[in-house]
């Protein structure tokens, strides 16, 4: 405590030189608030009004905001934050990205910042931009209705020289502006097309990409990737671990190059990006999509476990143009410097009605097992799932061998924890 206070006192003089300013965290995330508090950063949280009472009770400076409401009153948020002394906005969730973009554009008086953020919110525009910049992508189109989807499925398979009666190669559809896997469907035939919700239009259609899918978390400052994490997906939306296994890690230079190319093409200057790629046996990278927010799948928590730094702190640090080179150098470790792999399994109930929770003893006794957060549920119907978001619980693992990690995650993914 006393040491902390000493340090604090020492920085007072410096702080007087540079004007003190507030960081606005866009979206309610306890982890992000914790990170900001830990860095002794003056901050304001902008989040849904539901959190107002909680924020007040715990003395968190808070501005309630409805991110879905877009009108001439939206300018109020900027004025309000400016008044409070904010000069920086950090987006935490998909829906917050363009809000943070708009705010930062005003704070930095650079309208393009906003346009760039929009690029990250429209999957069609994103693909087009990538293609223009010479990044490898699949064939894609935007669809306004089901007829468009049917035409695209037909044309892709014509190009693949499929004959009448052959099994068609699938295409993928995803709503243009939803987070990650929300509304993502693989389309194999006409029945699949009928399953698409009308509300998911307009959507992006793309051809199927072969290869191993993985994600990166790149912490970018002044347009340069300062730290690149590679997350290996064992099964998309169910299990992943950090860092990636040696076979994928050895492609790191290639991947680092590709990510930097993406950053340059999208003119991303500050913050964190979370792109997904497919890599084929021969090392060809296909770009899937990219988001500029906290990734799902507990990836930030896994990064912290594996590399020992808080990814939330890193995000805030990299979002701030005033962060110095020295601070960055001191903050980030060498990406090859890790002891163990940190993985997690997101558990979805495989049944419609949940009655009980069963955690096998072998799991809890396994040396890689760290903890889980599942409790015996009150009996009830399982909620329909949106994207990969609402899993029932997560199991965390930590251990030295990536193959054992993969096997564990695969084995327990089949297990019925809920009966």
């Amino acid at each position: 405590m006393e040491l902390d206070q000493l340090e604090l006192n020492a920085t007072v003089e410096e702080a007087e030189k540079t004007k003190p300013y507030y960081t606005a965290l866009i979206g309610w995330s306890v982890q992000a608030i914790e990170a900001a508090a830990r860095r002794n950063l003056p901050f304001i949280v902008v989040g849904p009004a539901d959190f107002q009472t909680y924020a007040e009770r715990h003395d968190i400076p808070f501005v309630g905001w409805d991110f879905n409401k877009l009108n001439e009153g939206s300018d109020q948020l900027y004025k309000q934050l400016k008044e409070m002394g904010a000069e920086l906005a950090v987006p935490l969730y998909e829906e917050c990205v363009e809000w943070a973009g708009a705010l930062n554009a005003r704070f930095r008086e650079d309208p393009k910042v906003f346009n760039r953020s929009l690029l990250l919110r429209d999957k069609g525009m994103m693909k087009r931009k990538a293609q223009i910049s010479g990044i490898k992508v699949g064939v894609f189109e935007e669809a306004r209705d089901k007829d468009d989807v049917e035409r695209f499925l037909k044309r892709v398979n014509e190009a693949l020289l499929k004959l009448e009666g052959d099994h068609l190669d699938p295409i993928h559809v995803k709503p243009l502006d939803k987070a990650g896997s929300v509304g993502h469907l693989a389309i194999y035939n006409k029945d699949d097309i009928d399953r698409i919700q009308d509300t998911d239009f307009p959507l992006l259609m793309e051809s199927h990409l072969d290869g191993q899918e993985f994600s990166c978390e790149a912490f970018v400052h002044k347009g340069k990737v300062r730290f690149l994490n590679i997350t290996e997906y064992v099964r998309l939306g169910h299990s992943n671990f950090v860092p990636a296994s040696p076979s994928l890690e050895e492609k790191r230079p290639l991947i680092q190059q590709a990510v930097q190319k993406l950053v340059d093409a999208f003119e991303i200057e500050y913050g964190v990006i979370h792109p997904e790629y497919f890599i084929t046996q021969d090392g060809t990278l296909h770009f899937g999509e990219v988001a500029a927010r906290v990734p799902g799948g507990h990836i930030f928590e896994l990064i912290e476990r594996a590399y020992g730094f808080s990814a939330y702190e890193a995000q805030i640090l990299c979002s701030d143009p005033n962060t110095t080179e020295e601070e960055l150098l001191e903050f980030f470790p060498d990406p090859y410097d890790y002891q163990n792999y940190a993985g997690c399994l997101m558990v979805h109930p495989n049944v419609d009605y949940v009655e009980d929770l069963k955690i096998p003893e072998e799991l809890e006794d396994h040396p890689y097992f760290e903890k889980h957060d599942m409790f015996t549920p009150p009996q009830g119907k399982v909620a329909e799932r949106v994207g990969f978001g609402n899993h029932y619980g997560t199991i965390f693992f930590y251990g030295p061998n990536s193959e054992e990690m993969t096997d564990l995650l695969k084995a327990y993914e089949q297990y019925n924890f809920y009966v």
Partner: protein
Amino acid sequence: MPQTTGALVERFVYALDELAKAPSFAKPKYQTDVYQEANRLIEAEQGLENLYDYAHRFEETGVFQDGPWESAEKLQPPLVAGSLKAKGLPMIIEVLSELRMLAIAEGKSTNQNVSPKVAEEFLNEVMVLNLNLLFPDASESSRIEKHENDDKAEKLFQFLSSHLSSSALVQTLIDEITRLTAQRPIMIKRIVSMINMAKQMLNQESDEEDREELKQFIAAIEGPSPLSAKYKEIHAYRAQLKTITRSDLISESVALAKSMRDTGLVAPHHATLIRFLSKQNPGLLVYALSLNSKGSANLEENRELVIQLIRASIFPGTRQAIYGLAMMLERGILSHSPVAPGLRRLVELDIRPDVRNALYATTNTGEGVTANSILVAGTIQVLGQPLGVGQGFNPTCQAARGISLWAQHAPGFLLEIIPRAARDGDLDFTFEGTPIHSKGLKGGLAPELDKELDPVSLVLVPHLDKIYSEMMTRVALRGEDGHRWVNPAFYGNWVQKGFSSVFDPITGYVLDYSGFVKLFYATHHPEYNDDYELIYPNPVGIFITNVHGKLLGLHAVSITRIKKDPQGEERIYFYNPNNDGSQNWGQNIEPSVAGNGEIEGESSLPFHQFTSRLYAFHYNPYEQGDAYAVETSIVQGIRELAKDSWGKDYTWV
């Protein structure tokens, strides 16, 4: 290798330390891990002992922060059982909360709002309310309802009881028994099981006074006379009765009757004695029932019928009906012309198989009592103890209130609908000119009726519940509180046609509360209502609030009398069908069940306190006093009580 308790403790302490370090807004994130590790310990050997070592840190580290268990002073003993039975998280936090209370009680930690004494009282109360977990019995119902968490809860209670003083526990138990018996409920199963529990807990260290007090209750159910104490086995007792002199028979009768009158509990020997006397010496029945002059006159007048009823319905298995019989005779109700034939009809009634089975289930197997006997005994009880009717664990206060009202003022009607339901499986009520048959109705408030009910309720409630719901459905869209029309139609013409409610029917806002209060005073308070007496029970709606005055829900009770109590204060005496007439309603509003002029089964409150919880009542529009005369200070006082309790959940205009 399964993890040792030591390793689990280490994990728990790590999680607790992490929680301690977390800033207040981030506590929920770290609580999960604490709960997880606590759960592992609860299941482990010596887990509770180990958890308790850290219980003094639970509050300061934020284990309960921002959750329903946060404020120790707001916790309520009756809610503990529910949480312990719930799966998962509630059970874990509840266990931690009890350990926290124990730490406060033992002075290991301090809480500004909860003194060690209060914490101990809380835990004693919890124990008393969950005796079945502390002393698991092998009864059919507890076997069927065996819950997965019962083992854990049992472990917790064993642990707590090893830390709590047993004499304090016995004292709490006796208070609870006294409180419940004072209300003379028809259903006494719970009281009996408490007496048995207390008996098991008596030991060398027990207080002498407690021992004496408890002895009386134990004797009441096991044999309160010298003869019955000597011959516990009722066969032996019966054989003895044949050998003793008339004067010994009288003293035996007096002893048993005294115990019954003192406690409202009947010993099985009493049934044997009554049966014996009815055959051999009917003249002594007046001693065995300890009847007052009105009662003995009524017995004289109806001696043949009473003997017939005793033979048909009084058995050791239905012994509680002896108390009902005594009370019924003292009410003089047998002289009411429809009652005698109505009761006789039940003796030979052709009861439907489903009703028959339900009735059988009320006695223990092997007692050899017929369904008709049970039904007659139950009817005697309801007629003798109209205020002893309870709703059990069902949300059917309206039906219970109806049975109670009819037993008081319309026994002929009650004796009409009992055979209709038991024989025909149908009841029909006419509502605004249209008949409603219960037979064809679905739903009701309690489609799955809990069977812990007196025989008459068991027969009638399923039908009454559906009919009441149907009537409410038919008036649902009239834009006014449906009770206005439904209550007179359902209960009968005893209910007055004037009706007032605190709610504006369209908006649900509280409208003109002062006017509501003044009207109630002008129609009910003897000082303002031109001395009109309350003749029939008034079915009123009240807000039930918990000990902190927080609204729990709406409830139906009946005002039975309005009178000055022995201290000269105007009180409202009322019948509460929820079997527990003395719950604490907060703001120092605590209905009493004895000591303030209550008749057995009544609860009572000072006039203004009751008014502060009222939301709807009936009145006679032609018997209104002077509403304007009610002092503003009285209205203001009631308004404040209302606004600070249930009023917080409503909009006031």
